[in-house]
């Protein structure tokens, strides 16, 4: 499952960019950090024998979704919204503690498990194989997701359509 050096490098970039996103005061910076993070994860996908997903990750996430984010940020002028951290320190501490707890839990669980898992052999994960798998076992969810996308589209239109009086942003 990949070289440990590559893993560590990518992991540092991923965690670093994530933290960057978290702490950036400027929303644009956050968005850029997030793009970096997504691309890192796409590389992970390649490492993990999922090249097609890596491509999807880059195009959909790093491309489409993040463009959407940037667009909204620009539209709202939200890049100027600085310093928007919670004003309740107790919450900050508590949330951090919970996060820490979660990580520790997993660590402990893995340690207690003890065994070193052996990975299976590489399998064919070409788009063809993926597509076959998708349409063999997941036709119905596929349809549902299609409908979901459609309704999301309609919903977005209804939500953002300007009302009769022409009140616009």
């Amino acid at each position, binding site marked *: 499952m990949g070289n440990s050096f590559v893993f560590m490098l990518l992991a540092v970039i991923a965690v670093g960019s994530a933290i960057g996103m978290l702490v950036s005061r400027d929303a644009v910076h956050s968005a850029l950090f997030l793009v970096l993070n997504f691309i890192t994860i796409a590389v992970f996908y390649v490492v993990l024998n999922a090249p097609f997903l890596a491509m999807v990750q880059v195009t959909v996430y790093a491309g489409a979704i993040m463009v959407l984010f940037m667009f909204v940020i620009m539209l709202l002028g939200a890049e100027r919204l600085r310093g928007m951290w919670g004003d309740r320190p107790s919450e900050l501490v508590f949330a951090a503690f*919970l996060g820490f707890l979660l990580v520790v839990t997993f660590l402990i669980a893995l340690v207690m498990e003890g065994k070193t898992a052996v990975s299976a052999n590489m399998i064919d994960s070409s788009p063809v194989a993926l597509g076959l798998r998708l349409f063999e076992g997941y036709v119905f969810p596929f349809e549902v997701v299609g409908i979901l996308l459609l309704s999301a589209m309609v919903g977005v239109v209804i939500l953002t359509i300007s009302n009769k009086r022409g009140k616009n942003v």
Partner: protein
Amino acid sequence: MNAFGLAPLLLIFPVIGVLFNGLVGRKFVEADREIGEKWTGWFGTIMAFSAFAVAVSLFFSLQANGHHAEVVHLFDWINIPSAGFHVPWAMRIDTLSVTMMLVVTGVGSLIHIYAIGYMHGDKDFSRFFAYLNLFLFFMLILVSGSSYLMLFVGWEGVGLCSFLLIGFWFSFVDKNGVWKNANAARKAFVVNRIGDFGIVLAVILTFWAFGSLEFDVVFETALEMFKSKEPLLLFGQEVAFGSVVTAITALFLLGATGKSAQIPLYVWLPDAMAGPTPVSALIHAATMVTSGIYLIVRSNTLFEMARLSVGSELLFGVISTPDLVALVGASTALLAGLIAFTQFDIKGVLAYSTVSQLGFMIAAVGMGAYVAGMFHLMMHAFFKALLFMSAGSVIHGMEHGHHHLHDHDDDDFDPQDMRTMGGLRNRMNITSVVYIIGALALAGIVPLAGFWSKDEILAHASANDGGIFTAVYVMLVIAAISTAFYMGRQLKMVFFGEPRHAAAAHAEESSNLMTYPLIALAALAIVGGLANLPHFAAEHGAEAGGFSYLALEHWLEHSLHAFELTEEHVLHMPHTPIQIQWSVAIISTILAVGSISLAFFVIYKDTSKANSAPDPLQKTPIWWTSVLPLNTLYMDYFIPAFNRMAKWVAISLDWVFWHDFVHNRLVRDMFVTFAAFTSSVLDQKGVDGIVNGVASTTRRLSGFLRQTESGYVRSYALSIFMGAVLLVIYFMFATAG
């Protein structure tokens, strides 16, 4: 000719009248009073006459048919197959019902004409005629119904019409602020309902005992049971047949005392005189009040069987129901006759007279003289309707006279008070003549109608020995004397002597519309006796000189099954003498003439006194009868007691105790106390120690919880996150461990 197919028309004509007058009549009258009154009044009258014509055609059909009863089925009413209960709407056409139909529609039609004149100018003219037609409809259902249940429909229906008509002038308030008409209407209905209580129970009992409510079936089944002399299996136990019949007839008697105004339920009839006079004539003299007599005559078989009950099957072990009927009738006749002495209201005298005469009829049917009872019923319908309508004419005349006076200084003027009248025979010729005819007929003067019918009842009472007959005979004779006396008193006070009030001096004769029906009825009151003349000779030839004696007797025999039983010697009815009892006839005539003369020439000799003078009888014990009777007892004791009881139950028991105390105080407070106790124990650090119940506990708890509801999405998310983490931890170690 067979006209039984026409029978439904008997009911349809009045209904058309009701619909016309009820729905559109008012518009006619409002559009043009003169023409509108003509249309609505005459329309109602023509419907009544049409019904009369149908009744006449039924009469001839029965003649042609050999007097055989015919049942005309209309349509199903109540039909419960699984319970075996089936009652159709069906009309029974037999001699008894046709007799009643003729009386009802005949007298009713005349009263309709009279009412056109009498109600002239009333703003609810059309409503009045709608009610009159509605009354005819229900009365005809009552007499033509083929089952007890249909009879009951009519019975209640005429009660309703009585209510509506007594309360016709419901807005009237007397000078004491009492809603006189509305109260009288309600009283009539409620008192009648007490009687109906008996009818309902009797009808239900009849069904379970005899398995049907059709007259035919009931009487036939009863007869078979009577002949078999075996006990009846009723409600899971064996009951003697006599007891069942006694119970049924006793309950019928209760119903009859209500509708026919007998002791103890007569109290509504005098009050009912508050209604318009045509109503008093039609409903409260001629027709509706006689339905109690009709009911007993219709059930004659059952009553005669009850007469033969022995021992413990008798009512209270003492007396059979027909005997009780006779005693109730006779004592009512006597008591009401005496009360009539004390009345000053011209209609009040007639009202008590009606109660008294109904007593005669009830006594007659109780003694088994069914034909005599029916005969008196018919004759009474003629002369009492005549008297009431003439009295109405007098009242009209007095009101006219009062209007002519220019100084209305005496607002207390009562046009019905006989003390303000006097000498009216000079002002109102026709009315006075017909009134005197009616009064003499009522008093039983030969050869007017009342003589023959009353004499037949008295003869029956005297001809049978033993039992209650003697007592009944004595009471009825005294009642007959008092009848003659109070009518003499009334004649003297109203028509003779000098006018005691300016209104009487200026009274005017009523219009032709009112007097012509009076003349027609007066003629009937004179010749009516021919319907059932007794034999004067000893031989029993049915026909003598082309004229049939005892016509009514022969006619009604076909409907009176008890007579048929007599022939088969199953029943032993008291016999009615079919030739005149000279002793009874002569004695009663002498007494009647004597007591009229006594009133006329002795006690009320001096009638020119001022109208405030006390009555000469006021110092005699007879006068006390007016305060003694049941009305006072009911009105002053029973009804206020009921009102107080109802108020106590409603306010104290139901509301204050049950609603407020038990539910809102006891249950709720116990719960609250319980909750408060719980909270003070659970909540040691409670601010005040004892907290007021679960409500405030909840409020404080929610107040605490509310603080967590910051409304910030992030806070909620934090909670969710916490929950998620905890769940993960749980699953990790639960599954791993």
